[in-house]
């Protein structure tokens, strides 16, 4: 007798995440338009919502073009890797108490592992395209994601020290009296910056900086494979927002409203912050990005961990 319960949860989680990722393309365009004083997509259906359907139909019916000069196996593999790994990370994200695919005792490690696998897709895409812009974009993305990954893990450790567990359910339950954003504010800021860099969102989109690298690592991609990089990026944004909610803002905990609603509200708030960042901040130079990550944020993450340890020792 096979237990069908995990299958149901996986189906529900993937349904929500994939639809949200598709819908986010519309949300992002509408919100950016709002902040930039224009309309955004508003022709297809009510509020332009039909745009999502129209876009996906269009992407699916475009030619599946694999460049003859590219490394074909790696070229096809790269977009599949980004979608698969970012979907996989949702296996440990609890939407409410008990509503999780697998409540692993090493949940945070699993998340970090999956988010670092995303580097492969970018490097494979950039290298296999055999295009100079793509190569530069891929290299930049690799250096950026590796650099910011180092202190991404370290910045989370403050939360783990306080909760004493890598299990995400335990971490959320430990926040019943106080959200971890208060004692771990430095950790929250560091993790947020690392998260933006890890998802290659503006202002850290140097891997695909359109004004210098055309489209960076996905210059040669078209049709659905190009769309998959976008879907992967939006799933990444949802993932980082969900992690911020769970680890620093009490996850599904909240008064009156049901648990998944609270989780959804908080996650959507961070998604909107991601989009606002895109509308508000200019892109740094690559050397600024690297030296900032290594010289400022990495030592800060270490110091934050030591200070947290000292406070726990003192019993505060």
């Amino acid at each position, binding site marked *: 007798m096979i237990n069908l319960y995990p*299958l149901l*949860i*996986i189906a529900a989680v*993937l349904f929500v995440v*994939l639809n949200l990722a598709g819908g986010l393309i519309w949300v992002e365009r509408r919100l950016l338009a709002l902040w930039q004083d224009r309309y955004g997509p508003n022709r297809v259906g009510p509020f332009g919502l039909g745009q999502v359907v129209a876009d996906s139909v269009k992407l*699916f*019916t*475009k*030619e*599946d073009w694999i460049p*003859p*000069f590219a490394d074909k196996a790696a070229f096809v593999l790269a*977009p*599949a*890797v980004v*979608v*698969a*790994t970012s*979907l996989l990370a*949702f*296996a440990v994200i609890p939407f409410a108490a008990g509503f999780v*695919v*697998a409540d692993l005792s090493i949940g945070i*490690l699993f998340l970090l592992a999956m988010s670092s696998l995303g580097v492969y897709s970018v490097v494979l895409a950039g290298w296999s*395209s*055999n*295009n*100079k812009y*793509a*190569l530069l974009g891929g*290299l930049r993305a690799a*250096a950026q994601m*590796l*650099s910011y990954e180092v*202190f991404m*893990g370290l910045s989370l*450790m403050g939360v*783990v*020290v306080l909760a*004493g*567990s*890598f299990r995400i359910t335990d971490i959320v339950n430990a926040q019943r009296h106080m959200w971890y954003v208060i004692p771990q504010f430095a950790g929250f800021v560091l993790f947020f910056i690392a998260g933006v860099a890890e998802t290659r969102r503006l202002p850290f989109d140097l891997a695909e900086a359109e004004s210098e690298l*055309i489209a960076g690592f996905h*210059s040669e991609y078209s*049709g*659905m494979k190009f769309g*998959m990089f976008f*879907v992967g990026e939006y799933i990444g944004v949802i993932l980082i927002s969900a992690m911020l909610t769970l680890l620093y803002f009490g996850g599904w905990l909240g008064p009156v409203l049901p648990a998944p609603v609270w989780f959804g509200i908080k996650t959507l708030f961070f998604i909107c912050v991601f989009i606002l960042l895109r509308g508000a901040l200019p892109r740094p130079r690559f*050397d600024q990005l*690297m*030296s900032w990550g*290594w*010289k400022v944020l*990495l*030592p800060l993450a*270490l110091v934050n*961990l*030591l200070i947290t340890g000292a406070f*726990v*020792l003192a019993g505060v």
Partner: protein
Amino acid sequence: MPTSAGQTWFPVALQIVIAMAVASAMIGFSYLLGKKVKNKVKDTPYESGVPPVGDARHRFSVKFYLVAMLFILFDIEAIFLYPWVVVFKELRMFAFVEMLVFVILILCGFFYIWKKGVLDWSEDRSDVKVAPRP
């Protein structure tokens, strides 16, 4: 509540299969649905509209290799901190002092590579005197 390792990890394995199936379905459907048009110009790499010069198998800056090496060093250091974090509340002072020593040693190496200029991606041009225009 799952008890054995198999019960805990079975859903993860299931999700691995389903996530890969979703990704392959996306590629597969677009392969089946899209039309195919052969075109000689389309089959050249994009280089902003000019005919491509050579291919992209170039040498690139050694800085990228250095970052990869630094990543391995510092990520292993971070991995050492992960188990420390979970046992910290039990070992208390002992764990804290041990970690302090470890982090100070790491920071020594960190400031060494900093002073060696590994973390500087652009040369400092502030000492270069630009001749004033006549």
